């Protein structure tokens, strides 16, 4: 849906944008780390974000929502009914983790993986030993409430825009507290393309407008 004549997508890796990120009060050591770090994946490990950038304005505290490590307040991840915690089945005792890359046939057959290279599979993101969390490519564990860090490993430009409130939906107050959504609230992580919607009713075409009794003057 991009305008055809303007097709200069920014690359998925955002190093030149450090300046734009730091304008949102990210501590100064963040760009430094950026330059020193060996690669993007290292950067996105939580160590790089140990001092979280504050989303302006600082999110309030609402008890019912888990607070992600960064201080960006997000609602609960949209788990399927009864699926979480994963450790209720994957407790590491009754079932030994099978680390072999394969197509699942017994369970989770409803999940269609249509995300990136065909070789991708469950344990690239889900952690085999700690099933209730995800992991980054570095091995760093990430809770489901901070899954945007995982997504941001590849989609760095989107993560950057999301942090400043430009990618994704915001609700609340333009000059006060805003509510953020996780990536997975709009994009199914297993098949992330935004799903088409049925459009709501179109306006009445002029030829179908009925003159009502009494008419219009």
């Amino acid at each position, binding site marked *: 849906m991009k305008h055809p004549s303007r097709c200069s997508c920014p690359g998925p890796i955002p190093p030149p944008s450090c300046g734009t990120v730091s304008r949102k009060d990210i501590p100064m050591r963040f760009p430094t780390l950026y330059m020193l770090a060996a690669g993007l994946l290292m950067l996105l490990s939580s160590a790089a974000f140990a001092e979280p950038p504050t989303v302006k304005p600082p999110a309030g505290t609402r008890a019912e929502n888990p607070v992600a490590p960064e201080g960006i307040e997000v609602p609960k991840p949209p788990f399927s009914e009864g699926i979480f915690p994963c450790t209720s089945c994957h407790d590491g005792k009754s079932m030994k983790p099978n680390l072999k890359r394969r197509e699942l046939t017994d369970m989770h057959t409803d999940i269609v993986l249509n995300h990136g290279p065909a070789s991708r599979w469950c344990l690239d993101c889900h952690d085999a030993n700690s099933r209730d969390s995800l992991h980054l490519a570095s091995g760093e564990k990430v809770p489901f409430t901070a899954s945007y860090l995982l997504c941001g490993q590849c989609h760095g430009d989107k993560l950057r825009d999301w942090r400043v409130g430009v990618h994704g939906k915001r609700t609340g107050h333009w000059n006060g507290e805003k509510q953020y959504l996780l990536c997975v609230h709009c994009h199914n992580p297993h098949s992330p393309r935004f799903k088409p919607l049925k459009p*709501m009713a179109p*306006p009445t075409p002029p030829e179908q407008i009925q003159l*009502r009794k009494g008419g219009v003057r």
Partner: protein
Amino acid sequence: MTDPKPTMPPESCGGSSCGTRREFLGAATAAMAAALTGCGTLSKEEFLQRNFRELSKQEVLDVIARLEKEYKAKYGKDVKVANTPAIPGVIFGYALDLSRCIGCRRCVHACVKENNQSRDPEVQWIRVLQMDKEEGVNLQHADQYYNPEEVPQEGHFYMPVQCQQCKKPPCTKVCPVGATWREKDGIVVVDYNWCIGCRYCMAACPYGARHFNWGEPNLPADQVNTNTHYLGNRPRPKGVVEKCTFCIQRTRNGQYPACVEICPTGSRKFGNLLDKDSEIRYVLENKRVFKFKEDLNTQPNFFYFYGV
């Protein structure tokens, strides 16, 4: 539907016993006023009400009290008519991501609900144009009546158009009675009680953003949004022009407009242009942005951008 001739003597019959010549004349004047305006239900106060910008604080309160009473009688609900002024140091800006909008029209209908538009005859402040990707932003290839099973459709993109809240609004320039103007926070508003319904503003607006109440607005009582603003979404009478006000009743209280809150793709961005940390400023400084019909020098505070 106010007759713009405040020279009529403010006389009326004091009671049922119109005996004297003076009282008779008063009653005759009132009857004539009713005949002239074509609106028998017009109260004397409404008839004699001046332009909103000329009213004193007390007069504004009186007008609001009268309106709230009228709405209560009409809809059986306590409709709150606010008069929240512009916030100092704020100029509202809006940006819409054309690379994300899928044309689902959620915004159109959320706007109707929030802003008490007439349901029948249908008045909608947002028009979503389906355009060909081949053609780009080209109004010759725009369709607002598209209705497929699913959007987005292959080969198309979608461009919602609403009031662009211009810095140089041609609509306010042509109003012969000064019933529409640009507020300090950049919102172009209409005083529905002062509008004479000449529709010059509609002819002047290059965006088709103004809409006329050709018939008596039909707003079911159970669907009335009771949080209203005098210059915004309070129920309108027949014969006046109305338009998007960036949800003045919400945004002047810090909330996002209704269209921003409903958009399922997050295509709509809103904020204070004077706040360098706002989302809108980030968009303007970092994205590819254009103004619609920029060549007309209307200088919109509404921007379109490509987020990807």
